[in-house]
């Protein structure tokens, strides 16, 4: 049943979206939030368990202080007010993937209170996302529904539960309602979630791999007529686990809700799901009562105390944050906004930095990583890091060019060789005998031959028209099987013409 949608441009022209994001970040601690069970992605189902993570009778949770430290660091990066005293509360609901049938979360006394994150949009402008809280909680296990067509619970004949993930520490970052983004709502949302990913990676507190579920978002959105109009009813789309999915969910929901409102319909306050295969959201459970979880302070856990001294210690050890680092690198590297953004989008900032450290120029490093190497990564469907080429390799190629031992064409062939797994640049060069013809005698001969073969061009050059120079260089290249240095060729040509 296809739902009616309004064109996005019309929807945002007519209505003002107000949205909110709840981003869940799995922390990369060695052990779970409340017990010493080891955490590893992809382990045998139900192999990473203790009596506590299975919720066995008599078992008790004890807080993992490393997880608290990680969460404080994240709170600091999000400019949150860190509460010295915070409290875990039980969120009660029955579900097979919840070993205790309650989640241990934080309610009215979260670790991290209000904060904000400034995110950079494509045009370089800054949008401030207001943050309500960033609290700590434990993850649930994972249900696998079998026997159905599409792995969903509908139509399945049975389900399996893996409790390995049960008890993995999460931070849930909840924004305040975000207003004023207008048509840029999806862009702001995408930039915000990417910024969080970059921050948790910089802090080294999460693997932040969306495809492994390390990060996922609940996306809330409602429409109203304008800043002064009453807020509309919102929908909540749960567990969106790709950046594109978050953006598309917002676009879809804005279009759907606009069409509904426009036809005099009513938006239901409900939980929806983003369906990647149909590129739509589908309705689920209607929320009748916002607070039916019977929260109360978990009597098994004393309040969490983080002293102000400890907070300051953690603050002092904070690494440079991604946005500040990018601003600094952009200046150091003399990149344009566009160039820097491309590097960020390609996830190449670290690689460029490493390549520069290994001796290359920033421009040279950018050219390789965003050019040949990115194309190769795209065609293979892997990340830059997964390719068999290192920052050192790229810097080595650049050095060979600077030394005049490789020209552009040979350099590209060398990089291709490295990418093909033929070894280091030096090994590739050696294997194929790549070498710029810099021996003046051989080059002189080739140039003289080319000039002799093209008397009309020589005439033009002598007349001051330098355009056909390329044709001479091309002829020399052909004669030397590409091993000539174009600059050297052009220098000899100029000498000959001046004679």
């Amino acid at each position: 049943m296809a739902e009616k949608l309004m064109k996005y441009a019309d929807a945002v022209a007519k209505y003002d979206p107000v949205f909110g994001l709840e981003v869940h970040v799995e922390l990369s601690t060695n052990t779970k939030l409340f017990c010493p069970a080891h955490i590893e992605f992809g382990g045998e189902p139900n192999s990473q368990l203790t009596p506590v993570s299975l919720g066995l009778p008599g078992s008790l949770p004890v807080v993992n202080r490393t997880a608290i430290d990680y969460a404080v660091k994240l709170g600091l990066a999000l400019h949150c007010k860190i509460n010295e005293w915070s409290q875990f509360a039980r969120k009660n609901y029955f579900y097979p993937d919840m070993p205790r049938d309650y989640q241990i979360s934080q309610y009215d006394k979260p670790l991290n209170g209000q904060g904000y994150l400034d995110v950079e949009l494509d045009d370089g402008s800054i949008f401030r996302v207001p943050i309500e809280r960033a609290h700590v909680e434990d993850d649930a296990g994972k249900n696998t529904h079998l026997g159905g067509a599409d792995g969903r619970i509908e139509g399945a004949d049975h389900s399996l539960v893996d409790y390995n993930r049960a008890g993995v520490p999460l931070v849930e970052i909840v924004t305040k309602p975000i207003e004023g983004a207008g048509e840029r709502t999806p862009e702001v949302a995408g930039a915000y979630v990417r910024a969080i990913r970059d921050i948790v990676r910089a802090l080294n507190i999460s693997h932040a791999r969306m495809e492994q579920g390390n990060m996922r978002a609940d996306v809330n959105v409602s429409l109203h007529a304008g800043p002064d109009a009453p807020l509309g009813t919102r929908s909540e789309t749960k567990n969106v686990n790709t950046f594109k999915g978050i953006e598309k969910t917002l676009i879809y929901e804005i279009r759907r809700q606009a069409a509904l409102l426009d036809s005099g319909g009513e938006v239901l306050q409900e939980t929806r799901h983003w369906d990647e295969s149909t590129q739509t959201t589908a309705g689920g459970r209607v929320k009748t009562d916002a607070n039916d979880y019977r929260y109360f302070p978990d009597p098994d856990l004393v309040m969490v105390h983080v002293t102000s001294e400890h907070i300051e210690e953690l603050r002092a050890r904070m690494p440079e944050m991604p946005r500040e680092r990018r601003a600094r690198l952009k200046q150091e590297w003399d990149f344009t906004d566009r160039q820097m953004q491309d590097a960020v989008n390609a996830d190449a900032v670290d690689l460029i930095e490493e390549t520069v450290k290994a001796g290359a120029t920033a421009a040279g490093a950018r050219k390789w990583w965003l050019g040949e190497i990115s194309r190769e990564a795209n065609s293979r469907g892997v990340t830059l890091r997964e390719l068999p080429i290192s920052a050192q390799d790229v810097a080595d190629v650049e050095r060979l060019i600077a030394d005049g031992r490789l020209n552009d064409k040979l350099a590209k062939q060398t990089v291709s060789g490295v990418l093909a797994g033929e070894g280091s640049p030096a090994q590739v060069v050696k294997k194929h005998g790549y070498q710029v013809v810099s021996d003046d005698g051989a080059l002189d001969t080739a140039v003289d031959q080319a000039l002799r073969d093209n008397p009309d061009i020589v005439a033009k050059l002598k007349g001051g028209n330098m355009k056909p120079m390329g044709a001479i260089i091309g002829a020399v290249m052909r004669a030397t099987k590409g091993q000539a240095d174009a600059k050297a060729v052009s220098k000899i040509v100029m000498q000959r013409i001046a004679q």
Partner: protein
Amino acid sequence: MSVRNELVKESATEMARQLRAKEVSSRELVQAQLDLIEAAEPRIDAFLRVSGDQALDQADAFDKRLAAGDTDGLPELAGVPIAIKDMIVTKGIPTTAASKILEGWVPPYDATVIEKIKAAGMPILGKTNLDEFAQGSSTEHSAYKPTHNPWDTDRVPGGSGGGSASAVAAFEAPLALGTDTGGSIRQPGALTGTVGVKPTYGGVSRFGAIAMASSLDQIGPVSRSVLDAALLQELIGGYDHRDSTSIPKPVPPLASAAREGMRRDLKGLKVGLVKELGGEGYQPGVEARFNEGVKLLEGMGAEVVEVSCPHFPYALAAYYIIMPSEVSSNLARYDGMRYGLRVMPQAGVEQTAANMMSATREAGFGDEVKRRIILGIYALSAGYYDAWYGSAQKVRTLIIRDFEQAFEQADVLVSPTSPTTAFRFGDKMDDPLAMYLNDVATIPANMAGTPAMSIPAGLSDDGLPVGFQFFAPQMRDEVMYKPAAALEAALQEQWGGPVFKDLKAPWLDGHVSGTTK
């Protein structure tokens, strides 16, 4: 009386002495207890499961250790057998909390207190009966069977720890562990003439104690003497990193306080009589024994003052908000998914996980447990939370303040443990409120987290035991052990022996002829 009958009637401390002196082996001691359990159980029903083979293996291991002279670091009670309330998980021994919903569950781990019991070479005789999930004051709410009071087998032993109390009172075990959430160690102690202690909250690790109401639950000793209880509490107490609410401090010196008390000199001690815990609702025979006890304390040099705890009358009502709230959440995990009972939905009902959970909980829980879960869910619901749970927590704060102010006027506080002696089976089963009133004097200590204990004060005019309760300040458990031991010594002098000398225990006779080797 045979030698073996004399042995099982000894205190744990005396048994321990005989073990060290090699007057008796741990195997002989365990065998004597197992024989007596066999003789007594048809009348008492204190045990849900007797773990005789394991107990004998543990006894042999201890005897070997003793023979090898490997006694370094062993606590005083080493080698003495013990019974464990079936609310505490024991690796390899089924643990049910007396509920059908846990039938057949074999824990894969030991509670911290069980690890300590095992490390001390104390053989575990078996798991004792209780009200289902420790919810009740008579042990009639056990899903398996009621336990009988050795003083009158037509009467209840109190609850929820009726099994542990009856086992110790009937000489089936010299020691037992209980759990006390609102009086579940002390009230059965009062009704069976045993010593029962609820330590300071956090003084004994709760890791491995099946949770009823986490902020109130506390594991404690059951024994026939104050010194035995002190030694057992020292053995099981102390900081445990696996329990977040565990107090990171060493156990206070309890046995030395008890031994000091046995000298019966209480000069300089101020005893506070809690005005609100007495009078209306308290059986005259209970009050008579209690007042005599107070006189004896005075006679040993204690100064007795009356103190007021004006908010204690609200403790019961507040308790019946907080306890069920925590129960409703703690018992959610019994859903048929991972362990214990699983009941599939009836034919014609959709076979979903949610329906399986409902069917399992419907079949697996008894009425009293369901009553408390429903109460708790209601109290925690949106819109009611502040009025119920929030107000109850305020009462709790006021009770803590009452204790603090009372302890400014007195070193220890005293009251009757239970308003009545043991009642007959069925008397209060249809009247939950009458049943709840049994705990009116024991609940304040759970609400405040303060330590309290019950010792036998003699028999009421109905011939049934009466309990005398001591309260001490938080983390000062030793403060109550001294006057408790003093009063015990004074009373025993008066009676010419322990209160149990008046216990008619026909199973002791059967034991003699049937099992003497």
